[in-house]
């Protein structure tokens, strides 16, 4: 309706880029573009998941034993934190669609906080791995009773969780940018596309962790 009012007045809304017919077409283009980007991200992580499948199939005992050296409580806690952050992100997108400035800021801040908690726990986990000489490289010590290919498990563990954590850091940067824009009053019921697009990205990062958690932390627990 707001679009129609602008059209009647002979002007286009300020958020509308000149090459789009209307805000709806602009939003659909943004949404499709974001999803196509996420498709490339799925295949990017897919390469590492493939490497994981191949090496896990080849060195089953080493992978199961090394997996059991990860802290399942910290992993499960982080899974819960990330799911909660997805909820607050969804609520931020909802608040943006209602044009409620203060709520957008509150929910985005909560999402950042939860993301920071996740990364903090990751720091604890990584430092434990360094202390126990379970980081691949010259100081790696093969854990007692495990085949030496345990090092391969930890290589994949650090690559996959490291890249995931990097995505979280980027996400926190994007969320901070959104908060600044929300404070400025950029997002209204008519235009809130950036919040929705960053939301898609954040949920995607959550989905990656949903697969990483069972594949890295849980695969060998039944052998205990």
């Amino acid at each position, binding site marked *: 309706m707001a679009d129609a009012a602008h059209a009647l007045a002979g002007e286009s809304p300020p958020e509308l880029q000149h090459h789009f017919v209307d805000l709806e077409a602009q939003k659909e283009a943004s949404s499709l573009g974001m999803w196509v980007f996420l498709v490339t991200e799925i295949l990017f992580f897919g390469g590492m*998941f493939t490497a994981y499948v191949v090496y896990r*199939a080849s060195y089953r005992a080493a992978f199961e034993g090394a997996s059991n050296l990860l802290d399942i409580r910290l992993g499960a806690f982080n899974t819960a934190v990330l799911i909660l952050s997805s909820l607050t992100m969804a609520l931020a997108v909802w608040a943006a669609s209602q044009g409620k400035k203060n709520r957008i800021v509150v929910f985005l801040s909560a999402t950042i906080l939860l993301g920071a908690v996740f990364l903090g726990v990751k720091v604890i986990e990584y430092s434990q791995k360094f202390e126990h000489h379970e980081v691949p490289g010259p100081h790696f010590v093969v854990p007692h009773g495990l085949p030496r290919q345990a090092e391969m498990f930890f290589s994949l563990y650090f690559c996959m969780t490291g890249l995931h954590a990097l995505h979280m850091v980027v996400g926190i940067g994007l969320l901070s940018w959104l908060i600044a824009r929300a404070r400025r009053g950029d997002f209204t019921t008519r235009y809130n596309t950036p919040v929705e697009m960053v939301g898609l990205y954040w*949920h995607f990062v959550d989905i990656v962790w949903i697969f990483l958690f069972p594949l890295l932390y849980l*695969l060998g627990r039944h052998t205990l």
Partner: protein
Amino acid sequence: MSGNGSHRHPTLGAYFGVFVTLMALTALTVWAAFQHLGIWNTPVALSIAVTKALLVALIFMHLRYSPRLTAIAVAAAVAWLAILIVITVSDYLTRAWLPIYAR
């Protein structure tokens, strides 16, 4: 292109429902990992993970309320990922079947 009601959004109740379900499924997957299910431990864990991913994509990411074109993009990702994994694995896991080089 606008198609099937791209303006509809999930209700707040749906968001909280998905959140509670995701938490319950996380607890379930941790519990299931400690059970002795033979070859079924990994399929069970992956089924739970796929269910959780679908819930996030369909509700949190509004995929259920998005235009068909978006669904096609997602389907393309799944298809190419399947090609990547299936063809790679069909090579690696069958190498030992033949008594030739490349071990």
